[in-house]
């Protein structure tokens, strides 16, 4: 491979103009899943996961996160030139989530709209594209959303963690931003660690194969390549956010990359909301932005099965303090919780066989 700059930066500097998250109200404890499927035996990957209500899906959750992002951005929705929603649980097989979200927030009709798919990194993929659209000068603002109501087969390891939630980001000119996005880098290979075939309700996964060759390989490569390329080390970052399918993986990869548990703590939400798939890294970042100080540098690395990772170098500006209080904070959504039992969860998630 010829010598080239591996990290990517747009022509015009870009940043996060507004961000917003959403977590549904209901929680299913991992020990409740264990009670039903293993007689309560075995270790638990998280404490509890969020469960969407009967009237929620990726559309409704994206709308709420987008409204929060708009409230912080203080811009007219008419100035948004792209509405991109990354998810692996779009309500329709054919018919975009994005047009509905765009309509609900008042961004239609002069906007691009598309749904993105790449397992758990569909959201950050949309984010990279938004950087490109804004950074090239094609449009002033782009909305990138990562949101999921993740599916886990009853009894499967994924059922303990498959949660619901995500975040929305309005990307725009760096000078108006709450946080500049200095650079990004993506690392992608064909690695079948997790997949769902057409017409299948639940995904399949490679069990132990999902670890080393998939999650750890891609996140590490993306993070180290980005940091090496722009000349940073773990110590340059106040905070880091990694894709979080369970509590252990992000902690372990953080250690491997030289990050402390303190650095990942504000963005490590998986123990209390579960794995929100396309929303996971992006909602983790909202947890950080909710408490970050101007000047704080943040490394975010997503991971999507199949497989790939997008890494971002982000720097908080002084606009964060005035604008983050203009919408609901992620911690407030997390604190709003009603615990449900497995039976209610089965009903809420449409797992009851009616025919």
């Amino acid at each position, binding site marked *: 491979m010829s010598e080239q700059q591996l990290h990517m930066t747009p022509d015009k500097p870009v940043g996060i103009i507004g961000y917003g998250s959403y977590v*549904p*109200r*209901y929680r299913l404890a991992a020990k409740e899943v264990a009670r039903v499927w293993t007689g309560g035996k075995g270790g638990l990957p998280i404490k509890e996961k969020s469960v969407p*209500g*009967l*009237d*929620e*899906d990726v*559309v*409704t959750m994206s*709308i*709420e996160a987008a409204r929060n992002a708009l409230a912080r951005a203080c811009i007219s929705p008419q100035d948004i030139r792209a509405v991109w929603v990354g998810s692996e649980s779009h*309500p*329709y097989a054919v*018919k975009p989530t994005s047009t*509905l979200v765009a*309509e*609900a*927030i*008042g961004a239609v009709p002069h906007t691009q709209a598309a749904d993105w798919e790449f397992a758990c990194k569909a959201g950050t993929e949309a984010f990279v594209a938004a950087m490109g659209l804004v950074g090239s000068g094609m449009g002033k603002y782009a909305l990138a959303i990562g949101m999921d109501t993740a599916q886990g087969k009853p009894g499967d390891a994924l059922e303990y963690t498959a949660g619901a939630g995500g975040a929305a980001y309005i990307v725009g000119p760096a000078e108006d931003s709450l946080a500049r996005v200095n650079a990004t880098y993506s690392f992608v290979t064909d690695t079948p660690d997790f997949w769902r075939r057409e017409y299948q309700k639940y995904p399949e996964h490679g069990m132990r194969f999902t670890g080393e060759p998939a999650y750890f390989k891609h996140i590490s490569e993306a993070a180290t390549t980005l940091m090496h390329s722009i000349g940073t080390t773990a110590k340059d970052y106040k905070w880091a956010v990694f894709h979080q399918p369970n509590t252990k993986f992000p902690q372990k990869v953080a250690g491997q990359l030289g990050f402390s548990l303190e650095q990942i703590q504000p963005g490590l939400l998986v123990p209390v909301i579960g794995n929100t798939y396309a929303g996971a890294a992006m909602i983790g970042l909202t947890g950080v932005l909710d408490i970050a100080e101007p000047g704080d540098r943040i490394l975010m690395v997503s991971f999507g099965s199949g497989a790939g990772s997008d890494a971002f170098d982000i720097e908080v500006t002084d606009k964060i303090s005035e604008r983050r209080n203009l919408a*609901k904070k992620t911690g*407030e*959504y997390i*604190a*709003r919780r*009603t615990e449900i039992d497995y039976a209610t969860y089965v009903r809420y998630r449409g797992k009851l066989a009616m025919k």
Partner: protein
Amino acid sequence: MEIARHWRLKQQRYGLVGEVCPHCDHKIFPPRDVCPNCGDEAKEPFNFSGQGEVFSFTTIYEAPAGFEANAPYTVALVKLDEGPMVTAQLTDLGEQPVEIGMPVEMVTRKMRNDGDERGVILYGYKFRPVLAGLR
């Protein structure tokens, strides 16, 4: 299927877009193009804040066809901050008791399918208790 019927109402349904009377500033929802306050033409769109309070409420156990999967659910007359009253479901109640005067905020949610699960999903406004510390 009633595709066009619901499509033409999407702005009202998704975003609580009503009207404001250019003559007397009266806020109108649902839109009716004529101001109920002064009787003049009022077609200017107005985005409601979605903030309001419960004026009255009850719970439905025997739901109409298409809504059974969500039963029991709570419905309310919600008095919007800008004046008008709307009929709407309350959602995300958890175990939270509802009372007259309770502050609520608009959210966009799934209402029902148009027909069965092969039909389009109809989305619209509902209200939920205001999240703690945000009002």
